[in-house]
């Protein structure tokens, strides 16, 4: 049925009519705003007042007897929407979680007009039935997903259920090239709750004009959370909770955003889930890239004419000598004084000390072979990564035998280019390690100093023990300020590393093209 009253909209293939109500017409595709949508396509759904559109999968398309166009959408969750339940999971930058389980927040009926555009999502599940995406497809994808989020248990599952919201798993996986489109089914699944009833129900309770262009996305919350959130209704912009609930029954529900502004959710250690989707500058996550480069790098240079120097499996040959020597820290200090300490940068962060030692042997030997014909081992220490260190560039301290050798090595690395398997050139420089001097004060720890009175027992104990602070104290408020600052810092640092990553990627692309 073609609706001519609406420019920019056209129904496509018809699928069937309702079982109970024959006036309901189901469709497999439609044209909207110049884009063709098919059943099981992934779409963005616009919602007023939301900075980011919702993302969902069209699992049913139909027209009600009074000619309203509806779609049933199975939701995808962005990591930032389920932050609270992520725990230690670190989702990929462009990862989504498919809703699963039976409950509120799984899927909703929405007016078709709420669709804002197509979204390209690739299923990266390793399931045998899932046609595996090609690297190009992955590059092109806006998002990927391989895990689901159970809306009842609030848990992330690795498995995709056989059926979610009445949709068979094969329609959730990627489409195989030969099975384009949707399988022919005359009627929508009967065991599913009556879609038209549902639609009518929501139509009756929600004025059509009210929810026009606005998807209803409701998610379940704990009762306590709802209570808490109702108070804070309309307040925040924090994106840290699942808590946007729009109860179906209230007419203006979609306008009410219950946002959980409780800061106690947010001070999380990891940065991952706070990635804003707009930052999906890199199509592939960093983790993925690393993996790929790891797998490919050994063979990459094979075709090269230059003689490749291969590292043997790093074996702790020197284990015995290692223990006889003073700890690296001490030797490092001495080396620094003697000028034999060199900092190597731009290493692969996954390298270990022994591997760096090998790399350095090459720097060292090449110049030494000419001079003395000597092969000597130097010792290296790969610096451990912390949350603030760069994910792009690993660092290592190397102690050379002589000052001369250290100088030459730096110079050689400066004028020449020693490249690692993935094409990255090594950088060497002089750097003073931080002295292990005792530091007694810590920024952010406050002590009340009262010369008149000795510290009361209470304050003394508070300082010397560890405790979780309760939300009704001044300390808690102050702690929140620190959490906020921490989060801001993390975000900025993350952003910087991401921009740097983009820049490095550009350089890498240059490498390959030549």
């Amino acid at each position, binding site marked *: 049925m073609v609706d001519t009253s609406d420019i920019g909209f056209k129904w496509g293939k018809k699928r069937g009519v309702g079982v109970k109500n024959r006036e309901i017409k189901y469709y497999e595709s439609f044209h909207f705003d110049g884009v063709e949508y098919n059943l099981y396509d992934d779409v963005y759904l616009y919602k007023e007042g939301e900075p980011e559109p919702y993302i969902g999968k069209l699992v049913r398309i139909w027209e009600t007897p009074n000619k309203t166009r509806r779609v049933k959408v199975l939701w995808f969750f962005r990591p930032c929407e389920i932050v609270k339940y992520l725990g230690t999971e670190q989702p990929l930058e462009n990862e989504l979680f498919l809703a699963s389980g039976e409950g509120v927040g799984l899927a909703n009926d929405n007016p078709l007009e709420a669709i804002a555009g197509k979204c390209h999502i690739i299923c990266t599940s390793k399931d045998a039935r899932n046609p595996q995406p090609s690297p190009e497809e992955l590059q092109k994808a806006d998002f990927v997903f391989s895990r689901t989020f159970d809306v009842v248990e609030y848990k992330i599952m690795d498995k995709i259920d056989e059926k979610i919201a009445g949709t068979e798993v094969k329609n959730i996986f990627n489409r195989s090239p030969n099975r384009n489109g949707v399988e022919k089914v005359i009627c929508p699944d009967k065991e599913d709750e009556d879609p038209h009833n549902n639609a009518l129900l929501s139509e009756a309770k929600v004025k059509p004009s009210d929810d026009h262009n606005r998807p209803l996305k409701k998610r379940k919350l704990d009762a306590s959370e709802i209570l808490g959130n109702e108070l804070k209704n309309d307040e925040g912009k924090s994106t840290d909770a699942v808590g946007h609930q729009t109860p179906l029954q209230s007419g203006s529900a979609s306008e009410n955003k219950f946002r959980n502004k409780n800061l106690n959710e947010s001070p999380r250690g990891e940065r991952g889930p706070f990635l804003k989707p707009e930052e999906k500058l890199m199509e592939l996550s960093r983790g993925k890239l690393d993996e790929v480069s790891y797998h490919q790098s050994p063979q990459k240079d094979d075709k090269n004419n230059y003689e490749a120097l291969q590292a043997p499996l790093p074996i702790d040959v020197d284990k015995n000598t290692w223990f006889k020597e003073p700890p690296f820290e001490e030797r490092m200090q001495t080396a620094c004084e003697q000028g034999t300490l060199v900092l190597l940068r*731009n290493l692969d962060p996954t390298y270990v000390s022994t591997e760096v030692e090998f790399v350095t042997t090459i720097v060292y030997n090449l110049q030494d072979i000419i001079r003395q014909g000597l092969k000597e081992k130097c010792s290296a220490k790969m610096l451990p990564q912390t949350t603030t260190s760069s994910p792009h560039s690993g660092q290592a301290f190397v102690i050379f035998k002589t000052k001369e050798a250290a100088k030459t090595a730096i110079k050689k690395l400066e004028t020449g280019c020693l490249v690692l398997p993935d094409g990255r050139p090594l950088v060497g420089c002089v750097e003073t390690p931080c002295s292990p001097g005792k530091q007694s004060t810590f920024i952010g720890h406050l002590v009340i100093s009262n010369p008149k009175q000795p510290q009361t027992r209470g304050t003394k104990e508070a300082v010397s023990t560890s405790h979780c602070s309760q939300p009704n104290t001044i300390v808690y408020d102050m702690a929140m300020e620190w959490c906020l600052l921490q989060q801001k810092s993390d975000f900025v640092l993350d952003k910087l590393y991401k921009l740097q990553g983009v820049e490095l990627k550009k350089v890498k692309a240059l490498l390959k093209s030549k």
Partner: protein
Amino acid sequence: MASTTETEYAAFLEKVKRTVYVDNLSPQVTEPVLRTALDQFGMVKNIQFITNYIEPEHIPKHVLVEMEDEDQAKAIVKLIASCPLMIVGMPRPVRACAAKVEMFEDRPAKPGRKIEVRWLDPDDPNFEVAQKWKKIDKRHAAEVRFLLKQQKAEEEKLAKQQADNLKANFAKYEMIDAIMADGTAARLAEYYGLNLRDES
């Protein structure tokens, strides 16, 4: 031989999963302190401070805490994320996240990896690119250093602000205490006909 390194590496990966990275620690935190602090949430198996070789000295201490199993590690991360935990000092809380392989100083090498390194010929077309890359790396390092410095400044600012507030509050309470103690409050109450005693 190969299989032993592989099993060793697998065991190491398991250990990584069991481990929590704890950050923002005061330099006064020692192993026993940390152990008591985290023992209330699970069994602490091992504590290993990450040596700070190069980062500016102001960077807080960080530590890797190995728990009995992965669940305990996850629980601790979750807990510290949900309510601020303070160890040896207030009010700046510690933070925790799952440990990563690269954080371990003495980690075993990934088995089966071969590293090929070579010097580029100056005539190689990639030579220029590599030179450029080196420059970029240097700039990046400088950028990060600058940013961390900025962040330290911000931390100091916040600490100072909080310290000032605390001092002011403390002075206020001291003053109240003092006038209560020397009878000034009582005299004033009498003068204005107020009842100071809280008898409700």
